[in-house]
């Protein structure tokens, strides 16, 4: 059962893919990228220098021994990451 969050998180990337992130004061290490996709935003409503993309990553990661699945989103307009959903 997944839960929906939407918390801002801090993410470190390697080769353009998320490698580690901190969520609710815990450090998660990404083991595997399960899926990755991109959607374009309503660019006509936002500023002109932004590519207007949202990049989604569904990853397997763990803060400790237990592994969970997490969906992260990077928004090019805000240049920030969100924790969208978690299956843990």
């Amino acid at each position, binding site marked *: 059962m997944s839960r929906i969050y939407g918390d801002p998180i801090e993410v470190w990337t390697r080769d353009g893919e998320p490698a580690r992130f901190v969520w609710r004061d815990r450090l998660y290490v990404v083991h595997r990228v399960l899926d*990755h*996709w991109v959607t374009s935003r309503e*660019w006509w409503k936002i500023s002109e220098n932004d590519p207007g993309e949202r990049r989604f990553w569904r990853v397997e990661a763990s803060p400790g021994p237990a592994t969970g699945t997490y969906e992260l989103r990077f928004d090019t307009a805000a240049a920030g990451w969100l924790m969208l959903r978690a299956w843990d």
Partner: protein
Amino acid sequence: MFTHLHVASAYSLRYGTAFPGELVARAAGHEMDILALTDRDGMYGAVKHIQACADAGVRPVVGADFALSATEGEHAPSRGPAGEESAEQRITVLARNGGWRHLCRLTTDAHQAGRRGEPHVTRELVARHAEGLVVMLGPRSDVGRAVAARRDQHARVLLAAWRRAVPDLVVEVVDHYGHHESATAARMLALAKAMHVPAVLTNAVRHLDPGDYRVGDVLDAARKLVPLHPRHVEHSASHAYLKSGKEMVQAAARVCGGDSGRAARLLAETRRVAERCAFDPRDVLALRAEPERLHLPEVDGDAVALLRRRCEDGLAHRGLERSGQARERLADELRVIERKRLSGYFVAVSGITDLIRGMGVRCAIRGSGAGSLVNYLIRIGEVDPLDHGLLMERFLSEGRKGLPDIDIDVESARRLDCYQAILDRYGESRVACVSMMETYRARSAIRDVGAAMGLPPHETDLIAKAFPHIRARQIRAALSDLPELRGSGLDDRSLDTVFRLAERLDGLPRHIALHPCGVLVGNSGLRDLTPVERSMLDFPMSQFDKDDVEEAGLLKLDVLGVRMQSALAYALDEIKRVDDQDIDLEQDVPRDDPATYDMICTGHTIGCFQIESPGQRELVAKLEPRTMHDLIVDISLFRPGPVNSDMVTPYLEARHGWREPSYPHPRLRPALRETNGVVVFHEQVLRVVDVMTGCGLSEAERVRRALGDPASRERVRGWWEAAVLPEFDRETTDRAWQVLDAFGSFGFCKAHAAAFALPTYQSAWLKRHHPAAFLAGVLTHDPGMYPGRVILDEARKCGVAVLPLDVNGSGRHWLVERPPPAEPREATKVRESMETREAGNPLEIRGPQEAAETPEALEVVKPLATGDDRDVVEGFSEGYGLRVPFSAVKGISEAEVERMVAGQPYTSLADFWERARPSRPVAERIVQVGGFDALHGLHPGGLRWRPGELTRRDLIAQVGALERASATGVTSSRRRARRTGARGAAGATGTSTGAGAGGPPQAVQIPMSFTEHVEPGELPEMTEAEAVEAELEILGLDVSRHVIGFYDDLLDAIGVVRSDELLAVRGGAEILVAGVKVATQTPAVRSGQRVIFTTLDDSTGPIDLTFFESVQERCAATVFGSWMMVARGVVRRVGARAVSLRAVDCWNLAELDHLWRTEGLEAVRAVLGPGRGDQAGTGRGRRSRAAGARKARAEGDRAGVGGRPTEYGNGYRLSPYADIGPAPGVTTPPRKLWHASPGSSGPIGFIPRPDRCAGEGSAGRAAASESGRSRKGGR
């Protein structure tokens, strides 16, 4: 090496965003050696793609992407989520090497299958052409949709069906990083593997760069007619760009789930398909093949012998069989033609011109083809090249690749008949029209983006119309460059996104249309070479444009519809009908008629072909042509090239003997003598090059072509230095080079000018000798640049009466009438209407007594010409009139016109209503403009209340009554009564107009027993002002009197000079002029300025004004935004009898008039300010010095027109805003033209006003006049 097999270019209309050349260049940059182009719905970009590939050393693949519909018999699957089922299904086909013709035929069939503009294929259709094709089933195919919907079993069934139908089938997987996309692709791969169908990877490319997807989104919205909304866009389109090989390897890894072996196999299979399809560009580019391949029509028998025989016949027919010169020239031409194996081409073209003339359609040759004697002999053209020293080499030379262009002008009204005849003669499989792509320009781009962004349609319309016809990418530059846009408020930040996006659409194809003249005439293999679809008018139309068909080696003939030819034909028919005179313009008309040239020399050329524009009227007045050759020079000089290389002045000076003609070298004298040492024609360039280098004319033609291209110019320069014969010294060599270089590509082909000069002369001759018939033709076919009301005014000046609409006299088109003398009322009518003009307008009115004495004198009105014009204009007077036609009535339908003409004569309004069955608004409009005046004896003007006398308003009320009666079903009994009544009346009086003319106003003889009764005189008559207002609104013409007449008091009060008084004004004087704006142009001029040329019409003649950039800051908005203007200008004499004004300021006449009426003359004077003349050099008076200085500073910052002119090698500078159609501005008169005079108190709202067509106003005008007002008011 990766190959993109699925690529849409900008030729996927309103879908792709990159041009084939850009895609090929990018692919070459990625080191790809093969690239496919698979545009949607056709092969529109195929030839351009192949050309780009050939140039870049890339091997092309060509295919197409079609909508797929369910095969007949199998209904579309109805289960599954609705969203998936409703999505459009598409498949991509690629031509295998050698499969070009299969792709052409499939494309043609796909367009035949659907409704126009909605081509689609079925599996059966594809199977029929599958022999030469590879079929790719991608994510959008029926199979792909089924896989995405997780209906695996259904997908297997579909794929199996495809596998049975098509031998060369592949599954196409795509991953745009969309949600679930790679998983779907993986399952697609699994399915392909299970079914043993090879799979390939593509990127379904539609952009060049990732960021381009926004343009794609706008195009999607424009194509689907929806606003931009997340619901309507492709969410992963940012990945649909031309990715590099490396990026595609990553994509392969994604869809194969990281299995590198499978990914490698996928890429290898993609490559195998590419190799199967790649072909040699020269297979299609016939002109690049060695030897070049031409696809000519079949000719019965031996074309060479046939052409020779026909040329011999021609020599005899043209009386040239004894001419040694002609025989020698013919032998030369035939040698070239036969070496190039083009005999069949000439035979075919002459067959077509014979066909056209056989239909009774006027047909003239245009362009360089007039330089060929063969064309003259076999009657393709009527211009004898030997007469004018025309050269064949300009048309056809040894060194030139491809087919020579033969262009034919036919009557515009019969152009499509000609196409149909050619189609019938050669058959559908051999003939197709050439297409052309309409591309996004500023206005269309703003419209589509505005709609996508959800702006209200009328606002979008206003914004779009504010712009002149510039390119889309100039939009924001124009906002700051052009004075009329600077103050318009359009540079608002909120519109910035709209403009930015609109600029991105610049030049993208948006619509395919029939080319205005190109016709392909091929052989039975034509449909193997070009795909064909239906045009709007249902003609077969190639998907290739004119450049493409030439590259493909197809024979193109230009059959251009020319309105002047229709006007001439119409005039000849009217002369035959009215005067029973047969005139053959080619045979009967002398080409040296002094009267015709006299008229041309005075610049009275409005309506004539080629020489009616203000600039040309000025030039003919200066040049004073007396022969055909002079006309040829005149036409050639009035081109941007000669004008901008300043050839006009030296030519005129030498012509009038003010200067000795000078020649760079005595040996160049023969080539340049005809133009007094000035190079005007292409032919002269050839001769100069030939004389000085001895290279021959064919080679000289190649040199001339090279001169037009800056890149090859240097090469030519080197060649020139080496090739000039030693007898020419250094100075001559340099001087000659300067002339050639300055000339560049700008000059004019003399053959073309000679071909133009003929209809020019013919039109002038007709205007001089049959003005009524000629102007009837001009009014009917509208060949020129002036609105109809200017032509009407010209008619009046020629002594031709303008007769109002009359239900019993008017026809479908403008008819010439010769009113019989025994009809006094008609004459009175004319006189009355003309009498109103007498104030300030010198008209000679002869009384009815005189009229009775001589039938010719019945034409009571004759302009009394003033000054120098007297002799010329007087000669025009004739007893003719022009009758306003039914078709001029706004909103009238073709069928109504038909019935109205067929039902003549009518005995009453009720009879007309009953038998012609007009719609109510049309009937009312006809009453309003006096269509029943003659029948019912109405006299508008004068007393408004005339008890007992019928008025137009009574009749309008009657129209309402009649309609209500028809609606309530009392018509049947009335109709019977009407029938007998009608017959009786017609029989009794015999003539149409006689019915109402004889008796008292008994028009109320309408039996109103069953309908409401309208008392005659119950309603007031229209005033003259109201009548003219109605005419302008309904006919677009001021028939009964000139509009400007209503402003005479004001114009006299402020001292406006009239057109016919201009010649008496000394040069350099600063005066006020006024008139209705009839033409506005911004042609290219030498200085690189955007100069506005405006012509005003004040009822006594045209007034030509020039606005230079220095005054546009304050004038441009008013010039573009006014219908009637007052202008202040400095008089400049431009010829013995022509005057032009350099404008210094201008005002909207309607606004001045309002000011005059509300605040008085002083207020108007204050706005006008004292002119320079009154103020003796103290500048523009009323403004205080400080304000003046401030304004001057401000103007210094952003004065005039911005934008960098393009500079050419010869010092010619071209403004980026020159030579484009200006903003439409105001083309219809304002609704209320003048203010009702105090006495007329009729209920203004009484006349039912039909809705005006949209476009009366425009943002430009609204905004411009707004700012104009505030600016003027602030002074």
